[in-house]
């Protein structure tokens, strides 16, 4: 495996990037004199100089497309900085060490400005404003919903109101980002190597920012050491590294430091909700007005997560009267990027906490409350108030399986027994709906993708596809589809991804889409080739083409399997006897096909709703925890999940995706938290000693069961896998912790449930009870 940092070009130099220490400040002056003279330094650049050669970075998803506000994002700050960590100046040196040493010698004078890092505070009329041409700090405010919430609340037997603060946390793949740019002066073109999830759209972004044609940019994405959304583009360093290469005349590499990866944020939202229901636990009304603190507005697709959190409410529950208001606030924290789950994880967490709160207020079994509110299997396709047209599923069956898998009665008995000893065991359930394979109208977040399948005269198969793999195994799974269709062996097939010069145009990897789109496209292309192989094989085998099967590298008669011929020979015949045996079968053995899934609705319906997802995977999660009420420490003891992602190509790959996502969700529930110092506005969790992620001993084995309800809207019935797991795990663990603390009647309104937070809640409650 060759990752970005393993690539070395002749005469390669290294970029060093100076970042702002202030969350909000005017740049008075930058003096590069000392840095330019430093050892090994070839070149140095300020934001003002960069702006002479570049245009703003196009937004991956422009808020303007949805009626919001936007701002110019540049590769180096121009005039002022809006977050601590914003790139301010850069150097090119002959080694990483020299580049790092040189940036210390850049002299910048700042005039610090008042700043705001809290989402609610940023909405106050007198809050410091990030962008002077905006009249507030709101990127966009969007309502979702339907029915008559006011009337439904008035009629509701019970109403509860509460709040949930979801912390800022991010995906943190173990491989940080990295880019290499190589400007070819004579060809006037860039070759850009980057750990990128979306090479083709990135090519377009680079061409815009760098003022060149798309044909002057080639993007090559090497193996990626985990991505999870973080390696979607719009980052300032992408175009910066290109510009540095052009201006310095050297190939330039930049590899991110972990403290820089940790700057990239996501997911921080504060939900204030109200739910109306009857004594049977049936929910009739829901209101959720939430604020997402997206930090400064970046060009990556981060802010869009909040949009989809709102759109996905109320997940798979049949609630007809819904009032959602999404407020996307900018603050002086560093920008977001996309993070696995893409906002739907927050929806799942909030909905699942709501269900458990309803259950608790009625003293009902939370499983039963879910059963009474989930969409029933005969009701699909089901259109939610947010506009989602949910394709298929059997949520009740999945719930039953989860109950059985975990042995709920035994767990509850054990819970009672342990409570006698003063020990707090808890069990928590979560239903999770994961819309997958999205398409955002008017953006290069496309819902389709394209694959090419070729077979050479020697029978070798090559697949080229517009989707990329972040290391989750979609390359192998796509190959498997093709190999099965063509009857050849894995040893005779290979796949190429991630090079904009050789692969068909495609959108890359996000939204659990790779198999649904790239996999189906490869399937269609393989079918085209199969038809030709079968036709010519039938002529060679002197039989009807319905009497030919392909398998194990051979074409054979179904009626008489002893009559067979290697598929390679059939291929050779097609290329060499085009005017005889293979006449009428058009060579070459090559097909490029695009797969457009059904169900996507780009044009708004009468209620203004669009449906951006073709298909919806679902899962039921269950977690068992023990909470130590002396220390607040949560011990996750068992974890089970019933997962339905439609047809499964390769169960182990699907399970691997789910297991990894669950681990992330457990981290989100219990420990992961990006914290900014309120006094300085600077990120304090800038390494893995302060930003804690789950280690092996924090997790149990994950028990997985599959349920298969194929999607009616995708060719193979796939629903996509990869995004699911985060919200489900975060919710199941959170519900389990609350269940463990039920004897104390505690509700914790701030995530994550770290020992400190849990202990604080226990102590606070104990004090209350004493009064």
């Amino acid at each position, binding site marked *: 495996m060759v*990752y970005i940092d*393993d690539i070395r070009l002749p005469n390669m130099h290294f970029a060093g990037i100076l970042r702002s220490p202030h969350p909000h400040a005017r740049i008075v002056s930058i003096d590069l004199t000392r840095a330019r003279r430093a050892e090994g330094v070839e070149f140095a650049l300020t934001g003002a100089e960069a702006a002479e050669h570049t245009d703003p970075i196009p937004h991956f998803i422009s808020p303007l497309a949805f009626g919001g506000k936007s701002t110019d994002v540049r590769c180096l700050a121009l005039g002022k900085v809006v977050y601590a960590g914003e790139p301010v100046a850069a150097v090119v040196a002959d080694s990483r060490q020299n580049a790092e040493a040189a940036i210390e010698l850049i002299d910048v004078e700042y005039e610090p400005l008042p700043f705001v890092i809290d989402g609610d505070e940023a909405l106050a009329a007198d809050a410091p404003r990030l962008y002077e041409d905006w009249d507030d700090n709101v990127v966009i405010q969007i309502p979702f919903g339907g029915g008559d919430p006011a009337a439904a609340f008035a009629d509701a037997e019970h109403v509860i109101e509460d709040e949930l603060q979801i912390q800022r946390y991010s995906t943190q793949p173990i491989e940080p980002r990295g880019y290499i740019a190589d400007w070819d002066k004579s060809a006037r073109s860039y070759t850009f190597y980057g750990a990128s999830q979306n090479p083709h759209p990135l090519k377009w972004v680079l061409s815009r920012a760098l003022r060149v044609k798309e044909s002057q940019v080639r993007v090559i994405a090497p193996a990626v050491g*985990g991505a999870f959304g973080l390696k979607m583009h719009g980052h300032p360093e992408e175009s910066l590294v290109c510009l540095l290469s052009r201006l310095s005349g050297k190939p330039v590499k930049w590899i991110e*430091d972990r403290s820089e990866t940790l700057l990239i944020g996501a997911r921080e939202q504060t939900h204030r909700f109200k739910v109306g229901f009857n004594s049977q636990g049936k929910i009739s009304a829901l209101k959720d007005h939430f604020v997402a603190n997206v930090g400064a507005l970046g060009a990556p697709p981060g802010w869009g997560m909040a949009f989809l959190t709102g759109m996905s409410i109320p997940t798979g529950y049949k609630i007809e009267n819904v009032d959602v208001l999404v407020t996307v606030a900018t603050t002086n924290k560093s920008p977001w990027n996309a993070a696995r789950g893409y906002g739907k994880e927050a929806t799942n967490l909030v909905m699942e906490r709501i269900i458990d709160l309803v259950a608790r207020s009625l003293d009902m079994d939370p499983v039963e409350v879910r059963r009474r509110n989930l969409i029933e299997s005969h009701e699909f396709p089901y259109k939610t108030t947010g506009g989602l047209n949910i394709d298929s599923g059997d949520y009740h069956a999945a719930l039953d399986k989860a109950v059985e898998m975990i042995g709920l009665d035994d767990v509850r008995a054990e819970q009672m027994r342990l409570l006698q000893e003063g020990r707090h065991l808890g069990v928590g359930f979560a239903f999770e709906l994961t819309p997958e394979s999205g398409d955002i109208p008017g953006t290069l977040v496309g819902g389709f993708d394209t694959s090419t399948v070729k077979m050479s005269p020697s029978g070798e198969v090559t697949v080229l596809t517009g989707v990329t793999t972040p290391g989750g195994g979609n390359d192998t799974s796509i190959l498997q589809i093709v190999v099965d269709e063509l009857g050849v062996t894995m040893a005779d097939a290979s796949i190429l991804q991630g090079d904009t010069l050789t692969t068909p145009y495609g959108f890359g990897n996000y939204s659990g889409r790779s198999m649904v789109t790239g996999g189906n496209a490869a399937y269609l292309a393989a079918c085209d080739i199969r038809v030709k192989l079968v036709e010519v094989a039938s002529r060679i085998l002197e039989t009807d083409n319905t009497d030919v099967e392909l398998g194990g590298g051979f074409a054979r008669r179904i009626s008489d399997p002893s009559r067979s011929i290697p598929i390679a020979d059939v291929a050779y015949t097609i290329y060499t006897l085009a005017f005889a045996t293979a006449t009428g079968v058009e060579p070459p053995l090559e097909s490029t096909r695009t797969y457009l899934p059904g169900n996507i609705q780009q044009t708004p319906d009468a209620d203004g709703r669009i449906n951006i997802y073709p298909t919806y995977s679902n899962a039921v999660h269950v977690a068992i925890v023990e909470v130590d009420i002396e220390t607040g420490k949560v011990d996750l003891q068992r974890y089970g999940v019933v997962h339905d992602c439609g047809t499964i190509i390769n169960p182990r790959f699907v399970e*691997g995706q789910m*297991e*990894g996502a669950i681990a992330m969700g457990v981290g989100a529930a219990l420990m992961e938290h990006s914290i900014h110092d309120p006094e300085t506005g600077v990120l304090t969790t800038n390494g893995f000693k302060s930003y804690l992620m789950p280690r092996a001993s924090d997790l149990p084995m994950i028990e997985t069961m599959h349920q298969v309800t194929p999607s009616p809207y995708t060719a193979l019935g796939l629903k996509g896998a990869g995004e699911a797991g985060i919200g489900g795990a975060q919710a199941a663990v959170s519900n389990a912790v609350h269940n463990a603390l039920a004897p104390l009647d505690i509700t914790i309104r701030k995530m994550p449930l770290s020992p400190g937070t849990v202990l604080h809640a226990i102590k606070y409650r104990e004090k209350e009870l004493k009064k």
Partner: protein
Amino acid sequence: MTTHEGVGINVTVNGESRDAIIDVRETLVDFIRVDLGLTGTHVGCRTGDCGACTVTVDGEVVKSCLALGVSADKAEIRTIEGFAESSEHLSIIQTAFWEEFGFQCGYCLPGMLFCTEELLKKNPDPSEAEIREAIDGNLCRCTGYHGIIRAVRRAAEETSQAQREKDELRDEEVWARPGERVDRALRGRESES
């Protein structure tokens, strides 16, 4: 202004003696990756927290981002490139990680392999908890550790199986002709698969 003069060192890397002149500020991981060109050792944090940079120095598992290159003078270093006994065959541990989906993106894999090797040397039959403890210094963001735990268990079982076979062969060596020995070894392998 100081210029950073190189310092001469000699190390044995994967059995091969190498002389090098290195910048005193350079960490061991950069020396291995950049100067020696052995890029199988990865970098995830440079603060000793992720384990992507794991190698062995004089037989001990170390995180090479925490040491300076110069400190490795005269040491014996083993990187992932020298992990398998031969370049054609994966080791038992590597095969187990392959079979059990013990990795996805592969970035953490070298570190996990070294930790597994060290664990199995000390403890040929580790429990799940012992495995988790052994790899606790190494972060994996893709697998949730699930496949890794299974891979380590499988590696443990197959290592002891291989050991048993070796022992049996040694017992019978006296009696068997060379041809039969090979036969038996092959038969053993077949019955396993």
